[in-house]
């Protein structure tokens, strides 16, 4: 017996008798001797709840979280405020503990949430159909390219270097499986090099993938990219940060065929990278090729409105090797957080929030670029994140800032060797002007100190 299992000695006796065996061990007789584990599992003994809590607290305290410093770190996940109702609803047993809704009659709650979520994602992206979630952002990019391959069977995808490095890496890994060649299109002054893209395009290109805003924070001209792709019959795929769609045109309105992205910024925690959710929206043409669950509206035998998992003939449990994807367990709870967040934000709120980020991002960029030894890496419009160049070693500058309680951002050199001096700074509604001014002070002093150390005179 443990705190989770309850076979009393009396239970055991009754149960063994009903089964007709003399011991529990006997039930494992079918395991051949040659593969039996002949010793206890080599793990520490179990612990009371309070001890486990204490241990997990100890570990938590060895991390510097967004609660412990003023952070401007983004690069794919962002420190947004998660409203209390999201936590409350995500922790309700009725949402937290059920399985995928295989029995729709007793799963209308979850199914309707999916339907509402799909509606919200469709509205955000400007595309008519959405699935109920995929794992997360980068793998969604890989899944989108697979959909393109299913659609047009072409062997090559073009991906902008402005797409998140993890997305590009994931795309490469997955494409190696389904047999698509990945070719990168470089950036020109912060955004996808349209000339290079046009040069690389041909009739064997399955899809063109661009990110909006791109990894350097720059707003791309998605319509141009989509038009170029379409000229060669390729699919236009856009990865996007959903919160920026409060001020940026919906990809669906710019000719994009598939829009995917990381949903973390919609009411999901940072959680050191997951779980969050990926979203996946497309044109109607692709509906029967979409990966993952899709909730659809229908009626019951009495004519009541209801919801079911629909178009399941796309899916692995029905179609097996002919399925359009292998995805099964996805991110339903996180997507619930997403649609609750979007409801909380609301039609006006998403614009207000995005506008606030836009203005503060502009302010931060100008404030920082005015510092000695700090320059804009590009001049493109930005919404919530921007890239700088420092006249000082970035990692050292970051350490100096961290020591003063400020996380100044992401060192671009980690993913972009061509920008060894690059720093990516992210803004959310949680970073006030005072925080930005503080970053300005701390960063300015750190750069100055490093330049002094390197013998540069300001």
């Amino acid at each position, binding site marked *: 017996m443990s705190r989770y299992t309850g076979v009393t000695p009396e239970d055991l006796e009754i149960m063994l008798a009903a089964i007709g065996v003399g011991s529990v061990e006997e039930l494992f007789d079918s395991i051949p001797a040659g593969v039996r584990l002949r010793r206890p599992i080599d793990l520490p003994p179990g612990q009371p709840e309070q001890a486990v809590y204490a241990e997990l607290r100890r570990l938590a305290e060895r991390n510097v979280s967004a609660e412990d410093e003023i952070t401007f770190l983004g690069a794919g996940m962002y420190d947004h405020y998660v409203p209390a109702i999201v936590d409350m609803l995500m922790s309700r047993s009725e949402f937290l*503990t059920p399985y995928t809704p295989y029995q729709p009659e007793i799963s209308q709650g979850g199914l309707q949430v999916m339907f509402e979520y799909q509606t919200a994602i469709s509205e955000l992206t400007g595309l008519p159909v959405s699935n109920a979630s995929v794992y997360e952002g980068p793998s969604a990019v890989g899944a989108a390219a697979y959909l393109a391959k299913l659609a047009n069977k072409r062997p090559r995808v073009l991906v902008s270097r402005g797409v998140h490095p993890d997305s590009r890496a994931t795309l490469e890994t*997955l494409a190696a499986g389904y047999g698509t060649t990945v070719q990168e299109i470089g950036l020109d002054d912060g955004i996808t090099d349209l000339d290079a893209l046009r040069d690389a395009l041909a009739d064997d290109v399955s899809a063109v993938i661009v990110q909006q805003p791109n990894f350097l924070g720059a707003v791309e001209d998605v319509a141009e990219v989509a038009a170029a792709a379409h000229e060669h019959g390729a699919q236009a795929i856009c990865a996007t940060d959903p919160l920026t769609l409060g001020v940026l045109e919906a990809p669906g309105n710019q000719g994009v065929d598939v829009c995917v992205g990381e949903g973390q910024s919609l009411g999901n925690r940072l959680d050191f990278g997951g779980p969050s959710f990926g979203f996946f929206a497309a044109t109607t043409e692709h509906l029967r090729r979409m990966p993952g669950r899709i909730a659809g509206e229908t009626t019951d035998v009495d004519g009541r409105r209801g919801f079911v998992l629909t178009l399941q003939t796309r899916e692995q449990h029905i179609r097996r090797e002919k399925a359009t994807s292998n995805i099964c367990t996805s991110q339903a709870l996180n997507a619930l957080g997403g649609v609750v967040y979007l409801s909380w934000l609301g039609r006006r709120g998403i614009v207000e929030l995005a506008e606030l980020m836009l203005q503060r991002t502009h302010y931060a960029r100008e404030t920082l670029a005015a510092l000695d030894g700090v320059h804009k890496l590009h001049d493109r419009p930005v919404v919530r994140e921007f890239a700088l160049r420092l006249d000082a070693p970035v990692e050292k500058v970051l350490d100096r800032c961290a020591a003063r309680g400020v996380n100044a951002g992401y060192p671009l050199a980690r993913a972009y060797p061509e920008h060894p001096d690059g720093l990516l700074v992210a803004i959310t509604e949680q970073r006030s002007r005072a925080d930005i001014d503080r970053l300005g002070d701390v960063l300015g002093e750190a750069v100055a100190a490093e330049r002094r150390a390197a013998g540069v005179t300001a």
Partner: protein
Amino acid sequence: MTALEGGTTPQQRERATTIFEKGAAGRRAFVAPELDVPAVEGLIPEGLRRAQPPRLPEATEPEIVRHYVNLSKRNFDLDSGFYPLGSCTMKHNPRLHERVAALPGHARLHPLQDPRRSQGALELMYELQEALAEIAGLPHVSLQPSAGSHGELAGVLLTRAYHADRGEHRTKVLTPDSAHGTNPATVTMAGYEVVKVALDENGGVDVDDLRAKTDEDVACLMLTNPSTLGIFDPNIEEIARIVHGVGATLYYDGANLNAIMGYSRPGDMGFDIVHFNLHKTFTQPHGGGGPGAGPIAVSDRIEPFLPRPQVVRREPSAPNGTTASAGHDGGRRVVGGPPTFDLDEDRPKSIGKLRGFQGNYGVFVRTYAYIRSLGAEGLQDVSEVAVLNANYLLARLREKVGDRLPLAFGERCMHEFVLTGAPMKKELGIRTLDLAKRLLDHGMHPPTVYFPLVVDEALLVEPTETETRETLDAFADAIAQIVDEAAEDPEIARGAPYTTPVRRLDEAGAAKRPRVREQL
């Protein structure tokens, strides 16, 4: 009792309305922080600026809360009743796990935080890797995959990389008929051809068929053991020999690991790659369809190809960055200060990345808490009680409805078992689906139905270890009652359910004319 027993419940009387139908123009829950910087016009060129805001809901916080709380009440859940959904391991979800995962040091930790400032998270991941390696009996673990099927994909891609590294190009992957749909689907996505292996009369892999189909074109055999029939394959050693004989890898679908902890390990059975469903054996709540996590454990020969980054422990004596001791490394003694933990991106043979960042860390926190809570003994107890409960429930059902719902294969089971509703269908005129729907009126979640495919009118029952004998008895009684009732009047089951928020839904119609979003 009539076919319309229960009549119309209050929930049934309410028309389902979405959040988009609630609220009114101008209402809001969000109050924006003040604009504390000078407002600048024209920051986004006109063509790129959104013309029309997305038509999101407009509702107050009370409206939103009430909407979703009421929606939640239209869900059945594990905290309310028995959920013997076979292959899904619907065990109790301890709330301690939610508490610790919500600690700000975990929940608000940015995935790109410098490893020197995320030592707690990296230590946790490292220790979890070690624990999973011990449980799997395989030395190296990657926590990265997001779910079981993602782990499968990782596994097959690892196989591809492994063979490619040896200059081999293989084209086929074997799966038995009883395999879960994700197995063949994964094979296709990973660019291989699926070859099905037959089952023998006991529900195990047909060794002769396997032998016949295993040649140098075969890259991998994917297997779950115990299988989806709840049977531990007695020929597992022979199977491993055959597969390894041609240089193929053996992949373990870990969905059924809950059956064997403390008794056997996939690594000891000869598997090269294993995935874990942390949302099954390790009790990450299912969330109505995720999140989960699907870490993989692999043998030495597969290790070089594991996804990047890997979490490594660095001994303090070693100069930083020079010796990374990844994976299982035996001793834990510390020389010259505590060890540190790091992310190792420098893996030249790696298949690359399967997703962003380092995986579903929030799930790892819960799993780690669970393993620490139970310890070695507790994990063994899990499997013992899971198997005991399944066999007891099987015994009770055989006693009560054994003629109508016989066990599909064999005499006993591991942690789950498959009944066939074929005799019931023939004799009483109700299908497994009807039985399942009628169970809903009894306030219980039905078992998995029509899976595995190899069993006619299949009913796959997995009670899990966290259910009590009383609950198992109640389930057996309910099944017996439904079967008896059907003997009197099969129409009752055929029309079921009656008391659920909605009754049987038109799934065909939904697929024919898909309405997948609210029209605004």
